[in-house]
């Protein structure tokens, strides 16, 4: 049924439809509305789950780890400092191969403290072994939650998944969202049957000492399974489309790329802004397109190569920065081509909620006409940058 919902409520509806047995989370802006809504569902009886109140995100992650180890479908959500606080447990969840599903409302990291949107939080956890997908709009965020369980709980995959949605821009933005019917979701997503779990009848141990004789194999297996997701993600997307009649998950999205001379690469909600920019440019006959990275982990190198190999100029827009290096997405896109064509320029923008407007995209394209850049920050205010310590703002 179509409803006019803010993004947080949309993903809460999505999580409810998947019938998790345990939900645990700690409030953090801009994620709080998601779990508030889920707590409402549990309190009013429309979701038959145990909502575990905890004292921190570290504990929230630990609760869902434990519940998932006991064979229960689980859900959690967090953001920014909360995600980073969880990070120790997140590496464990991936290492123990439990299909936890989490929504991350992407937000900047401190210091300075900043509650606004960028993607530094989740990008900083790219090496944790979690699958990471980035939604462009609220409908996708909801749909990705359903598909995340489908993907992660596949007995051949057994991986945790972060569904990323830009904080405020999506979590607090209102859009019309089609909330699917319960029966359809039940058909698409049968109850979770854990291939291994904590069971007194058949005791097993998880996450115990892996000394040098066994550790590297566990990491190799994790890596190979993430690579298997490169074929599983589009497959899950097709099953989704067959059931719900709208496009499902994919590794990338191509927007007017075929005849483009310039292609922008980006992730998340900013892709909507970029598409608008492209549409206006196309009216003026400028051949520009967008490659949207949907699956950041695993990173679809082949798809990126195929999409961009004949494009003369590529602009990569990062909403995060690997300090001391460059934008992380730029590094990866560039690595696909090594020293081959096309020329790949890297840009960093939108950190800590600085708006990425159509003007920003225009600046990016203008700069790329003049030179090939590696780590160009967009929209900086030079008056705030001084050689010596000063008390600003």
């Amino acid at each position, binding site marked *: 049924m179509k409803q006019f919902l803010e993004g947080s409520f949309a993903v809460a509806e999505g999580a409810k439809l998947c019938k998790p047995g345990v939900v645990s989370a700690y409030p953090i802006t801009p994620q709080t509305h998601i779990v508030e809504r889920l707590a409402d569902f549990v309190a009013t009886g429309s979701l038959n789950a145990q909502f575990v109140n905890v004292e921190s995100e570290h504990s929230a992650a630990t609760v869902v780890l434990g519940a998932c180890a006991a064979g229960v479908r689980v859900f959690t959500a967090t953001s920014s400092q909360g995600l980073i606080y969880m990070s120790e447990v997140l590496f464990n969840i991936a290492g*123990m*191969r439990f299909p936890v599903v989490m929504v991350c409302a992407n937000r900047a990291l401190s210091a300075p403290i900043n509650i606004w949107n960028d993607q530094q939080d989740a990008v900083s956890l790219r090496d944790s072994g979690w699958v990471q997908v980035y939604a462009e709009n609220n409908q996708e965020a909801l749909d990705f939650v359903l598909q995340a369980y489908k993907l992660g709980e596949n007995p051949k995959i*057994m991986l945790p998944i972060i569904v990323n949605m830009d904080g405020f821009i999506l979590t607090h933005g209102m859009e019309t969202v089609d909330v699917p019917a319960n029966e359809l979701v039940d058909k698409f997503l049968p109850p979770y049957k854990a291939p*291994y779990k904590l069971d007194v009848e058949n*005791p*097993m*141990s*998880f996450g*115990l*000492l*892996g*000394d040098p004789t*066994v550790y590297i*194999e*566990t*990491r*190799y*297996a*994790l890596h*190979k*399974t993430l690579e*298997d997701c490169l074929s599983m993600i589009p497959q899950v997307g097709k099953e989704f489309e067959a059931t719900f009649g709208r496009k499902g998950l994919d590794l990338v999205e191509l927007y007017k790329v075929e005849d483009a001379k310039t292609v922008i690469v980006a992730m998340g909600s900013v892709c909507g802004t970029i598409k608008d920019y492209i549409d206006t440019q196309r009216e003026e006959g400028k051949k520009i397109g967008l490659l949207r990275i949907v699956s950041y982990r695993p990173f679809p190198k082949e798809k990126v190569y195929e999409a961009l190999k004949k494009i003369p100029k590529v602009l990569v827009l990062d909403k995060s920065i690997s300090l001391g290096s460059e934008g992380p997405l730029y590094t990866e896109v560039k690595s696909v081509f090594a020293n081959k064509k096309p020329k790949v320029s890297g840009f960093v923008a939108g950190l800590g909620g600085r708006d990425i407007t159509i003007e920003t995209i225009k600046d990016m394209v203008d700069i790329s006409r003049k030179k090939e850049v590696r780590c160009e920050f967009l929209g900086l205010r030079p008056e705030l940058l001084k050689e010596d310590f000063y008390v600003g703002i």
Partner: protein
Amino acid sequence: MFGPLIAKPASSRANKTGSWRSAKKPRYLHQNCIACGLCKLVCPESCIEGKEKNTYMPDYEYCKGCGLCAYICPKKDIEMVPEHEKGEKAK
């Protein structure tokens, strides 16, 4: 693909961690033991067995030589000796 992910419980028994012992090991003198059981209680490896007076002994395949048993013994009936010395009772 899965690596060595899950194990049967108690698999740590197969790991003979006594080989980690690097400096000293406890020697149980079995002279003044009053069977208070404190050595057995404090052992972080739970590798000490015994019931009657002068019967308590560590399992050297797991004892890491931490010395807690010797420290806690109220009768000073356990001493820490270099690894190469005979570990069992002094007699």
